[in-house]
């Protein structure tokens, strides 16, 4: 295990509100037909917390359980054992209805943007539906202004998802999440399909949002140079477990685990610079 979670963040975090607390969480995916590999824990005994105003990243190789973890702690996916506290509620004790009432506070930017937009709904109709559900919460900005936040032009409002490029669809998903002014934002590879220029803009936007609304952001990414810039703390996952955690700089500049070192060493073209920083 890595060093204690937050020696450096402890002072400030103490006064902050706990937004998500997860202890000893396990998610076992049921497989129909049983047979080989039947009991497979995609998330295996994970503990994690996220406070108001924090940006916390989860990194780890493909299949390590990042998305499964995110779905469980936002109550979009079930968990098998352990406890999830979301905005002060023990998820296990909430009814479906109570969970639904929490939804606007908890927004998720999904890994597959095209898959998470309704193909029969234009961008404008999608915004309208969200506004209808939460008129007050969403009144802070108009449609054109919202699109401008993610650097999209208002003439995309009439488009359907299949008429958008990959990066445009991804930004529409981000805009939809921002519209709700959530208290928790889970961003699952939110900038993976974006070119560097737009990516920079989106990251800046997330950080601004944190400043202005105190949203807590759980940021899932395989791009370690982005993680390094945006997050206060990092959890490193491997095969369903958290194998290292701590303040971002500490974990990424002086990783204790060989696995974390490997992840960092594989960053293309950045190895040299890492060595310079570490030295």
């Amino acid at each position, binding site marked *: 295990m890595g060093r204690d979670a937050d020696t450096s963040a402890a002072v400030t975090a103490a006064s902050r509100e706990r937004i998500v607390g997860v202890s000893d969480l396990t998610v076992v995916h049921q497989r129909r037909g049983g047979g*080989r590999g039947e009991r497979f824990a995609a998330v295996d005994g994970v503990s994690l917390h996220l406070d108001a105003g924090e940006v916390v990243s989860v990194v780890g190789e493909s299949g390590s359980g990042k998305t499964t973890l995110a779905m469980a702690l936002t109550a979009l996916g079930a968990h098998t054992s352990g406890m999830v506290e979301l905005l002060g509620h023990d998820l296990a004790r909430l009814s479906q209805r109570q969970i639904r009432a929490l939804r606007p506070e908890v927004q998720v930017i999904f890994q597959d943007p095209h898959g998470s937009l309704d193909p029969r709904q234009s961008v404008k109709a999608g915004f309208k539906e969200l506004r209808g559900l939460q008129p007050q919460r969403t009144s802070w900005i108009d449609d054109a202004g919202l699109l401008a936040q993610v650097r999209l032009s208002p003439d995309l409002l009439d488009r359907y998802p299949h008429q958008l490029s990959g990066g445009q669809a991804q930004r529409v998903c981000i805009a939809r999440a921002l519209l709700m002014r959530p208290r928790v934002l889970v961003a699952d590879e939110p900038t993976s399909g*974006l070119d*560097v220029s737009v990516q920079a803009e989106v990251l800046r936007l997330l950080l601004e949002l944190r400043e202005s609304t105190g949203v807590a952001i759980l940021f899932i990414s395989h791009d370690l140079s982005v993680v390094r810039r945006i997050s206060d703390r990092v959890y490193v996952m491997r095969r369903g477990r958290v194998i290292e955690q701590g303040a971002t700089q500490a974990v990424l500049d002086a990783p204790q685990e060989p696995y974390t070192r490997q992840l960092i060493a594989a960053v*293309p073209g950045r190895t040299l610079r890492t060595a310079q*920083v570490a030295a």
Partner: protein
Amino acid sequence: MTATAAPQTAAAEPALRIDDLRVEARLADDTLLLVDGLDLDLRPGEIVGVVGESGSGKTTLVRTLIGLLDKNVTVTAGAVAVGGEQVLAPGVDRTEAVRGARIGTVFQDASRSLNPVLKVRSQLREVLKAHKPQLSKAEAAEKMRTVLRRMQIDDPERVLGSYPHQLSGGQRQRVAIALAVVSEPQIVLADECTTALDVTTQAEVVALFRDLVAELGVALVFVTHDLLLAADLCDRIVVMYGGQAAEVGPTRRVLLAPRHPYSAGLLAAVPSWSADGPIRGIDGSAPRVTTAFSGCRFAGRCPRADDDCRSAPIPWSGAAGTRDGYRCIHPLAAAPAPAPAQAASGSAADR
């Protein structure tokens, strides 16, 4: 099949040849130009990287080549030839015949590549049945396992027995790549196919592509927004902006000494590992390009723009006998730029 794609034929017939391609989208009030005047040659065994801002027309290019454009989108000019054979030209559309058989495609949107109601095994088997019917059942099974294992899927049996929704994002993306390459087509179009992959797996996929290209003479069009990845993999780079090629050339040349101001800006925006300053993008955004647009598409954001840039279409400046060149009337100096590490952290842009 692979004999025709052998490197010997390289000089004679490009695997893929695109001439003056133009693609338009009809909207309620006007017509957008999605791809405009695009030329490209791709030899067997060559890897071309297509990079450029979101919305610059990369996916449209890919979809045009395999005839899968949206209803309101049409090819209005230009020609495409695959292995010397006309596939797309005025009055000709043979894209359906090459799709899958000679051109394998990894779609940006994984849900286009994968069938949600079929297990991975059935999907791979269908591709092999259609394009490699001579393989025995056992050979096909072996091929499926091999291709998955080469993509760092350490549990191929489990993945073969899964439906797409039971896989992680990165696993789905690797299955999509497997579907495109398992039948060993002559051309592979890979559209942002590594975005959901961690760097270790990314490196493995890149190695797989390199092998395919070296062993089978596959010609690869690699669409990516990741310049560092393109630098690792590609022989040549096409930088797209607003539906046009802004710059085309050998990878090293384009990344070390970009001539087009947009290429330089793109390089400057690559996030650096150590710098702690603000993340820098290119200010402004791409214009809406209708058929009535004139002048340089980058003028609104270009530090070098003047009245000449805005008044007329910008001609292509290219070296004779190649398709390499750039579309700019005030290009950056051709002098060698700083080393790549520095270029990537922001000093390449001469502005």
